[in-house]
């Protein structure tokens, strides 16, 4: 109060400020009868707009019946004073505009420009300083008669604040002639309105955003459109909902996995809104448009369900551990394990001939290798996730470098089995330490390989366990992964100490050499599969490079195997080793070239051609809003179980017919490469791996149904029948998704 009365409010001429630049605007304001509010102010000493002036202006001189034109409440604030945005921040309230319009005229919502941040620690205000134009669209009824004049009345209240807040109240009116040929913008005001529009947030267009709940608040994830590459830009997010966030806490914007992440802090007054819509501002002077002039972007931000919501995450640790053990056990029956089957058979047969104690020790060494690998993989996964990357189980095969390395390794194992090369002796000597039998180490490392190759797949029970592990404290998570490894390893420990079974294995002999050579071919088959995976990740060029690498590795292996160390002349030995080394260097270069190749844009989606649409964020929701059921196949080229399901069940004519008959939208979420969107979608089901099959009923409120990891046509058809006919909910198809 004392500030307000510190002196009689001086009469301020309209010449102050930027309005000099718009003389016709002043003409409009001084038109007789046009501004009763203003004329009152001229005659009365009371100032209804402390430390500010407010004007009502129209962009058009005259308007056409049936058209829409824009008017602005322009507020000109004294230096240092501000008035609030639609979310005022921690204090204050936004301007309230009330229109009185002739019959049939309609005023749209206020189009708020992007605000400024005005910190007042510990609080934060979102407000405007200097000059702000609050634009409103006015619709003229089609039956407005040309030749008449429409009087637009506005009464507005807003707060003018610096250290203190003063309420401002204005009543303004504007006479606009209606003319058949009207509607053209007044050139004298074009600049002011263009400047005002440049401050409005741009429609988000190809920008997508969502908020993921975190312990402290939300992880706001913003996906720029493809090709947008201004990583050095800085950002701030203004949320619309005044109760949701702590406005004063820094948002720490950072780029991860091609997306912009902002850490939003939950306010004590947060009411768990379903959306955190708002305005993303570039604070580095750049813009979101090509010209770089639009610094603000309107974002629709749905809040995703917390990953922790699925039932398993809340289940007792003991139950999750049981699930993990069962999942590991069943992993042995999944097609994924096919690659390491050869190794297991060979190892088993080999050790069966030995004494029982040693055989058992080999089993234990294998189990230790499996379990330790699970723990190392889990630790890596947790650490990578803690560093902020969105990765899930099987992440190692999302890296082309790891795929290439595995491919070469299995190829060389195959060569070894086939008898091309026998490098075992030197390597085992290298590996053997002290008195320990190097072959226990071999069993151990076979366990490691089994775990690395076979784990990307998700077995029944395992999906739930891994999903639960990732939202638990790291110690518990490691326990769960350890249990998975134990489940996978336990059959071998049991078999290797089962004397009855061991007795049935024939005595060692020539047949073992035959078996070993035959088992080279499963190894080559796995290599061939990995070349295919690699090709999907890096394109045709990449696959070609990897094949060249394999040829060179094969050549080197042959050179070494042809002239073995013990029996060759010194010259032959040196030459062959030199040639082999050169070939390996060339092989490494070829592989490196392959790893760095980029696929042609369509290469992954080609796989998903036909009835299947590639996964996009928001696609499922959009289709369900239109009343369509959706089936999502979460898959990856490196997941053999996924491939088996797709080829045997999801390509089955009866299944496809059933999908078609019910109008099911088929979506393929291909996780062959790292796709943060898909990782998040998996997490929304408490999962962190593929395969996962989800059937969404058309009713958006109905719970989606998860199908088991090993599909049969019967399972899919039953699920479709249980969902019922899609026709019943097509009535909802016209439901709109709302306005503002």
């Amino acid at each position, binding site marked *: 109060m004392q500030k307000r009365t510190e002196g009689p409010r001086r009469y301020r001429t309209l010449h102050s400020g930027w309005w000099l630049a718009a003389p016709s605007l002043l003409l409009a304001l001084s038109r007789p009868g046009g501004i009763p509010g203003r004329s009152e102010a001229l005659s009365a000493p009371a100032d209804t707009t402390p430390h500010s002036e407010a004007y009502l202006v129209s962009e058009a001189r005259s308007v056409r019946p049936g058209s829409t034109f824009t008017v602005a409440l322009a507020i000109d604030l004294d230096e240092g004073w501000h008035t609030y945005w639609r979310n005022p921040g921690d204090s204050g*309230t936004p301007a309230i505009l009330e229109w009185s319009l002739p019959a049939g005229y309609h005023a749209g919502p206020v189009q708020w420009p992007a605000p400024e941040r005005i910190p007042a620690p510990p609080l934060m205000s979102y407000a405007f300083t200097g000059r702000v134009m609050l634009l409103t669209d006015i619709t003229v009824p089609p039956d407005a008669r040309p030749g008449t004049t429409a009087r637009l009345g506005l009464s507005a209240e807003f707060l003018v604040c610096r250290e203190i807040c003063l309420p401002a109240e204005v009543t303004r009116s504007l006479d606009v002639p209606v003319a058949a040929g009207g509607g053209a913008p007044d050139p004298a005001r074009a600049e002011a309105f263009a400047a005002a529009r440049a401050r409005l947030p741009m429609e988000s267009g190809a920008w997508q955003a969502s908020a993921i709940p975190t312990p402290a608040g939300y992880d706001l994830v913003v996906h720029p459109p493809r090709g947008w590459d201004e990583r050095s830009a800085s950002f701030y997010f203004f949320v619309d909902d005044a109760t949701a966030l702590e406005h004063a806490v820094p948002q720490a914007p950072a780029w991860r996995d091609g997306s912009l992440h902002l850490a939003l802090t939950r306010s004590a007054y947060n009411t768990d809104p379903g959306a955190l819509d708002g305005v993303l501002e570039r604070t580095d002077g750049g813009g979101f448009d090509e010209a770089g002039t639009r610094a603000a972007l309107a974002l629709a931000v749905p809040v995703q369900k917390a990953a922790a919501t699925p039932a398993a995450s809340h289940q007792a640790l003991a139950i999750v551990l049981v699930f993990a053990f069962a999942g590991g056990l069943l992993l042995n029956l999944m097609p994924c394990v096919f690659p390491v089957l050869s190794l297991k058979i060979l190892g088993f047969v080999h050790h069966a001939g030995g004494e029982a104690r040693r055989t058992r020790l080999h089993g234990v060494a294998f189990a230790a290798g499996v379990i330790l690998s699970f723990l190392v993989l889990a630790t890596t996964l947790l650490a990578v996730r803690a560093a902020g990357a969105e990765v899930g189980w099987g992440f190692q095969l999302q890296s082309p470098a790891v795929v290439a390395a595995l491919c070469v390794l299995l190829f060389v194992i195959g060569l070894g089995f086939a008898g091309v090369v026998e490098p075992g002796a030197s390597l085992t000597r290298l590996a053997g330490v002290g008195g320990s039998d190097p072959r226990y180490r071999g069993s151990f490392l076979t366990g490691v390989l089994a775990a690395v190759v076979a784990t990307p797949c998700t077995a029944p029970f395992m999906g739930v366990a891994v999903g639960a592990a990732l939202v638990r404290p790291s110690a518990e998570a490691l326990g769960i992964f350890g249990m998975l490894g134990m489940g996978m390893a336990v059959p071998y420990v049991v078999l290797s100490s089962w004397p009855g079974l061991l007795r049935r294995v024939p005595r060692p002999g020539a047949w073992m050499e035959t078996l070993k050579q035959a088992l080279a071919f499963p190894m080559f088959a796995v290599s061939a599969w990995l070349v295919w995976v690699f090709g999907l990740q890096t394109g045709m060029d990449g696959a070609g490079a990897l094949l060249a690498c394999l040829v060179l590795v094969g050549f080197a292996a042959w050179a070494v195997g042809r002239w073995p160390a013990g029996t060759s002349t010194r010259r032959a030995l040196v030459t062959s080793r030199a040639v082999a080394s050169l070939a390996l260097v060339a092989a490494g270069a070829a592989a490196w070239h392959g790893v760095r190749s980029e696929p042609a844009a369509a290469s992954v989606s080609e796989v998903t051609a036909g009835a299947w649409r590639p996964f996009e964020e928001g696609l499922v929701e959009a289709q369900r809003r239109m009343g369509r059921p959706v089936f999502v196949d979460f898959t990856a080229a490196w997941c053999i179980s996924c491939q088996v399901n797709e080829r045997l069940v999801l390509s089955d004519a009866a299944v496809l017919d059933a999908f078609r008959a019910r109008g099911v939208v088929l979506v393929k979420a291909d996780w062959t490469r790292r796709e943060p969107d898909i990782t998040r979608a998996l997490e929304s089901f408490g999962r962190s791996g593929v395969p996962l099959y989800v059937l969404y009923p058309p009713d958006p409120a109905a719970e989606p149904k998860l199908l088991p990891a090993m599909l049969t046509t019967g399972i899919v058809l039953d699920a479709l029948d249980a969902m019922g006919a899609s026709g019943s909910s097509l009535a909802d198809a016209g439901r709109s998704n709302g306005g503002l």
Partner: protein
Amino acid sequence: MTTLRSFAWVPLAAGTMLIATPSSVARTEPGRAGPEIGQAAPAFTLPDTYGKEHALEQYSGKWVVLEWLNYDCPYVRKHYSSGNIPGQQKKWTDQGVIWLAVVSSAPGKQGYFEPAAMNARSAKEGSRATAVLLDPDGTVGHLYDARTTPHMFVIDPQGVLRYMGGIDDVPSARVGDLQRATQLVDQALTELFAGKPVSVTTSRPYGCSVKYES
């Protein structure tokens, strides 16, 4: 048996493919300051405008309302000039509630008055608060994370916070809006006195920013 020795070296490289990384997954969460519903309200002691000390502890066994106050804030003016807050103060102090208005404005800032001037102002505004407490260095304001004037807190006889937030649910400085507003403090006290659960325990506080010492 040399033939099968190859088996031993084979997966050696596989082990090297696994990169062990320290499991540094623990992250510190930024703690949010301020009281929480259902928890003990932070203890404080403040002098009133007559120099008398008020400790929250001494009101154990009684209901306590805390109101952050700045008479010159338009939002506060709305609730005093209309008689809304004084009416609630009278209604509830008559039933034994301790209603403490806290002024966290720093000296020289809006809403700060010397004790005598504050008493004169309270009389003029018709305040019926039990006492007006002076918190010129903002200690108690920050303790309660008080953001606006008004900003309200309801504490039960066991010292547990039962409501915090706005005085009502229509954030504006217009007296006319009182008609359509739900008075949230009054509602919470009414429900608590009837032994019912509080239907709204938190709402966004609205008003002027508290004029803390900067």
